[in-house]
């Protein structure tokens, strides 16, 4: 439960060590480098844009080649592949790839060329197929389209826009021009979209004939085949076969290169890392012989880092405390249990300067409340064992994923605990099975495995009361942390006014409420306090309220009117406390939802009674129904526990908004590098 102490580090070294220093820093990943946004005249920068672009291009080359490999030779990935994390590479990525990089680039280029050729062949095949399609209506023609006529005759082909028979064509031609007679027409094909015909006629009649035909929409084809269509088709089909063969050959060639996948990944990461290095390099202030670099470093590694840099590169290194007014980047540091909640905290916001890291306390409450919302022993056991198995099986999974799985592992255990307390094992599955399939007769309200504490469905008011009680504890913890922060910052006035008075007021009101008749009728619980507690409660409530009224507007020193108005307004926040507290009733509602839906599933499953089909039905309904219930309630519990933390709990003391520590390191995509740390 802490934020890592940060130090400011300034490094100054000879320019010839520039790259090696950066490489070492990148390998270690300990330093967040602060770059000056503007170039100054005194310290010109090296222009690295060209080199950076070249590296980026090669990185894309490798990525592109990998994409091609994935397309033609997809990797067989096991089902839970995404949990596995990246493979580990020993040593420095620079050593691994530097020697072979040109070879890898060649491989990538070959792959891309192969793919380009393949694409061209594919388009060709498409084109030729289209050509064949277009030729289809001409198939009956057994001469080329551009055949010249004979000495006396002309030959031409064309289309009419509607289906006609030869007779119809002849009849409309004679209608158009009675003199036409010396011609012959062959209908090659007639379909809804048009008639394809070939015409032979005397040379002197060609014009009139075509004119008559044109009046009916005749048109010559835009592309004339120089071969008989049938022959042309055979030719095209042969070419398609050839192209397909060469496509298969190219695909095989690509597949043969799949062994290079690892190398290409290395290459991609190598250039990715180098690009980043050059990006920093291009922004370092430098003189003719030296360069400087400033950044943040966790305090615990600052010493060894400074020593190493001084020794290896004769650099001058300054490590200093971060000045008061400066916001340092935040790196959380927690024990194994609390670390699992860091993801939940980070998505709200990291602690600001002077704020406490609430991860530890929040995680405890998170796990507790989550279990209360889901509250089914079997579901809890399933979640825990699934997450536990995943964590054990894939030790190298991504860090943030691992944290969430760890959190759900603990949440599962808590769910198991609450399930046993409330007697929920797949809802009332055990009772239903015992009654339906084994003929056990259970008296009303009894269960095979009785609840250790009580069954919420039989006594919802009791659970509501406890939900509100847990809420109270949660909220008071938040207020307590605020008090602690006030004391830590030596703001005793704030501690008294914003924490103690509220604490007195709320606790006093609660103590007044608990012995009242309203409470007794709601929860069926009569509590009697000794008389002095009554007096004390009233005193606390009145004292707290007065204190808030008088001191909440304390910054307006002498304007008493405004000060009192502000105090009254602050006192109005009591409704906020009420709604915060009532918000915890969702613990009951969500807990009931899990139990009731589970029993709906069980009841539906047992509808066919004790028979073979009945058992089969039960098995199917049980499996599907409980999977659904678990999924939907898991989502609900996750969302609403987050809400209780973010809105109710953090609302009392925590703002967030700190900047995350993002060290300069090798941000790889495919492999993790285990440098010589």
């Amino acid at each position, binding site marked *: 439960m802490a934020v890592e102490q940060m130090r400011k580090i300034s490094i100054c070294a000879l320019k010839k060590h520039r790259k090696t220093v950066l490489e070492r820093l990148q390998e270690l990943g300990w330093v967040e480098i602060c770059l000056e946004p503007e170039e100054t005249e005194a310290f010109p920068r090296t222009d690295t844009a060209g080199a950076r672009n070249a590296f980026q291009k090669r990185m894309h080359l490798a990525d592109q080649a990998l994409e091609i490999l994935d397309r033609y030779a997809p990797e067989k990935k096991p089902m839970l592949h995404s949990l596995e994390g990246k493979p580990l590479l020993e040593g420095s990525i620079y050593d691994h790839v530097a020697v072979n990089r040109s070879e890898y680039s060649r491989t990538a280029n070959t792959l891309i060329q192969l793919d380009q050729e393949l694409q061209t062949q594919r388009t060709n095949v498409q084109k030729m197929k289209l050509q064949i399609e277009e030729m289809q209506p001409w198939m009956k023609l057994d001469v080329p389209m551009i055949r010249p006529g004979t000495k006396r005759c002309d030959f031409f082909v064309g289309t009419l826009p509607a289906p006609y028979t030869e007779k119809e064509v002849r009849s409309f031609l004679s209608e158009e021009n009675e003199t036409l007679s010396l011609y012959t027409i062959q209908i090659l094909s007639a379909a809804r979209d048009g008639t394809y015909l070939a015409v032979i006629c005397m040379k002197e009649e060609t014009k009139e004939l075509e004119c008559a035909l044109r009046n009916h929409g005749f048109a010559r084809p835009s592309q004339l085949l120089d071969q008989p269509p049938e022959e042309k088709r055979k030719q095209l089909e042969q070419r398609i076969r050839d192209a397909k063969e060469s496509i298969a050959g190219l695909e095989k060639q690509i597949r043969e290169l799949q062994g290079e996948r690892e190398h290409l990944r290395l290459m991609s990461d190598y250039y990715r890392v180098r690009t980043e290095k050059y990006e920093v390099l291009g922004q370092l202030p430098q003189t003719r012989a030296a360069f400087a670099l400033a950044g943040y470093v966790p305090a615990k590694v600052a010493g060894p880092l400074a020593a190493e840099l001084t020794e290896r590169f004769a650099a001058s290194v300054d490590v200093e405390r971060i000045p008061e007014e400066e916001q340092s980047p935040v790196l959380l540091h927690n024990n194994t249990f609390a670390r699992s909640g860091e993801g939940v905290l980070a998505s*709200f916001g990291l602690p600001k300067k002077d704020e406490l890291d609430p991860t530890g306390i929040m995680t405890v409450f998170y796990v507790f409340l989550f279990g209360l919302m889901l509250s089914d022993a079997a579901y809890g056991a399933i979640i825990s064992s699934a997450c536990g198995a995943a964590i054990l099986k894939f030790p190298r999974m991504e860090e943030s994923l691992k944290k969430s799985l760890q959190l759900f592992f603990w949440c599962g255990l808590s769910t198991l605990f609450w399930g046993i307390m409330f007697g929920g094992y797949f809802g009332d599955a055990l009772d239903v099975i015992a009654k339906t399939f084994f003929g056990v007769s259970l008296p009303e309200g009894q269960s095979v495995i009785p609840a250790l504490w009580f069954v919420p469905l039989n006594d919802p008011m009791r659970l509501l009361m406890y939900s509100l009680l847990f809420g109270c504890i949660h909220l008071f913890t938040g207020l307590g942390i605020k008090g602690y922060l006030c004391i830590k910052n030596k703001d005793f006035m704030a501690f008294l006014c914003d924490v103690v008075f509220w604490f007195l007021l709320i606790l006093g009101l609660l103590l007044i409420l608990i012995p009242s008749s309203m409470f007794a009728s709601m929860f069926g619980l009569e509590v009697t306090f000794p008389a002095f507690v009554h007096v004390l409660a009233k005193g606390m409530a009145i004292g707290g309220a007065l204190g808030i009224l008088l001191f909440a507007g304390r910054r307006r020193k002498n304007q008493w009117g405004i000060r009192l108005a502000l105090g009254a307004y602050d006192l109005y926040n009591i409704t906020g406390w009420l709604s915060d507290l009532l918000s915890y009733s969702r613990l009951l509602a*969500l807990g*009931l*939802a899990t139990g009731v839906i589970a*029993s709906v599933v069980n*009841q539906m499953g047992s509808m066919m009674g004790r028979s073979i089909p009945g058992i089969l039905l039960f098995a199917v309904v049980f499996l599907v129904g409980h999977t659904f219930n678990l999924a939907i309630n898991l989502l609900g519990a996750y*969302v609403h526990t*987050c*809400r209780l933390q973010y809105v109710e709990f953090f609302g009392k003391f925590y703002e967030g908004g700190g900047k995350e520590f993002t060290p300069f390191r090798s941000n790889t995509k495919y492999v993790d590098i285990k440098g010589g740390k």
Partner: protein
Amino acid sequence: MNGLVWALSGAIVAAALAGCGSAYGVGMAGQAASGVVTEDPSKFAKVLLLQLLPGTQGIYGLLVAFVTLSRIGILGGGGNDIALTTGLLILAACLPTGIVGLISGIYQGKTAAASIGIVAKKPDQFAKAMLFPAMVETYAILALLVTVLCLFSIPV
């Protein structure tokens, strides 16, 4: 016997209205989610979760209907003899889940669709995006709570 009719209509009102609200909400969020997935299929899991959020009202409706049906003995077959007053009481108890479920389902759907927009542009803000629809759901939960508390305290 009259009371049974009213009690049963209570169960139907809860399931039907809350179901309609959820159907609308999930449908609306689903349209937004499909838009995101066409651009970036890798966000499927995240937007699916957001789409599911307005679905809970329908489940609360089902839950109330089921509790009601088992209280009035219809699930066991037959159905108890229920006084008119009791039947009307049960109907009244079912109303919050139905009405609030309908309206909160619609609005939660709209909020979820907007949150899907957050995920589309800033996927790392997923947890925050998930909270906005959850705020709306609070009221469905409160209504459910009232209904369940009423149902359990109405003597049948």
